[in-house]
């Protein structure tokens, strides 16, 4: 077993009721149920969560604004329409955010529908995620899923200001070093 890379799943998370559903990261997993379990372990604390979604990365249609300008998406596609969630990356530093839902017969057609609905300038990158491919955490399950992590502050990365501490240590080491140089 040399290749241990399981399929990739994108993880989406809503911090609190009324807040946007945001892309939060990626997990690998053998299947989608394990992906949701892994997503809980990896992301439930960053930040707080009321619901979590996972979707297989390979089923997501992704287009940047530049790609769309060079090669406009076809609005027509063969087959029956299905629901797609549309996510948009609204700024360079921002996480992709859920903008709404469209009905389309393909991922590309869903992106075309999103451009028409939200405006081509609305996002830097578009994601069309087939709703049927998404596994969502069960709202009835939010207690066991998210509550235990809240008490465990030691699992919060903010509890470990390693970067700040390293910076302070380096600054101190540099000062000491200069002092030594000056006294030579």
């Amino acid at each position, binding site marked *: 077993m040399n290749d*241990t890379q*399981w399929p990739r799943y994108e993880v989406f998370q809503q911090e609190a009721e009324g807040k946007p559903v945001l892309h939060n990261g990626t*997990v*690998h*997993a*053998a*299947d989608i*149920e*394990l992906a949701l*379990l*892994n997503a*809980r*372990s*990896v992301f439930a604390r960053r930040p707080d969560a009321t619901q979590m979604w996972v979707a297989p990365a390979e089923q997501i249609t992704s287009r940047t604004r530049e790609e769309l300008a060079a090669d406009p998406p076809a609005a027509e596609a063969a087959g029956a329409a299905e629901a797609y969630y549309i996510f948009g990356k609204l700024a360079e530093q921002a996480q992709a955010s859920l903008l709404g839902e469209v009905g389309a017969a393909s991922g590309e057609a869903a992106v075309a529908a999103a451009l028409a609905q939200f405006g081509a300038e609305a996002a830097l990158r578009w994601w069309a995620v087939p709703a049927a491919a998404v596994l969502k955490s069960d709202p009835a399950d939010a*207690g*066991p*899923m998210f*509550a*235990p992590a809240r008490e*465990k502050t*030691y*699992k919060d990365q903010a509890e470990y200001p390693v970067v700040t501490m390293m910076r302070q240590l380096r600054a101190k080491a540099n000062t000491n070093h200069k002092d030594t140089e000056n006294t030579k």
Partner: protein
Amino acid sequence: MLDHKALARYLIALADDELILGHRNSEWTGHAPILEEDIAFANLALDEIGHSRLWYELAADLLGEDRARFPDRQVFLRPAEEFRNLQLVELPRGDWAFSMLRQYLFDVFEQHRLAGLSESTQASLAEVAARIRTEEIYHLRHTRAWVTRLGLGTEESNRRMQAALDALWPYARGLGGALPGEAGLPAGVVPDSAALYEAWLAEVSAFLAEAGLTIQPGSPDLQSPISRADHSSDFAALIEEMQSVARLDPEATW
């Protein structure tokens, strides 16, 4: 009249199970099959160690000990022969199938026990049990998922899971033995371990069969449980390593 010392002995045995299982599982940190699983299982190990702390603290209250210092003293300064954990939880971690199946077998029993404890007439005990139970729901989902997938996966994964079951089953029967102190407690304080064992046996037997795994006929049963006072040859090394840093300077403040 509740015998506080008897209940404390019971809770310390529960805490020892959680601690030693958490410690064994923590040995996977950095070695799990994939990064996400490494994080998940390390989290799970931390949870178990956290649960042990809750039980040691309750025991400290019952014994009139300092609940801030008692858990550390139990974990880091107690001689190996005074631990009352099951041999099931102290066995070396084995392969991934072994560790997943052990955690599964333990977690199912714990769910049944926590359900009983959360209805205890002893309010402080019921409250802690209910808290732990919420967290254990996900432990069980995690290990159930793995046992099923490995049991029904490839020829190799099934072979490894079956080997893990064959190795673990004789030790799992220890789950049904009465805990220290249990016999001296009035009805309604803690659930009867023998009754929990029956419920556990029915649940895991059905689940393992669905996962394509076979409990070997003629396996020893509850009639001959392993005493919690007996430890395997690997246990002394585990305790020595776990306590090595604390024992360098028992008075140090952390």
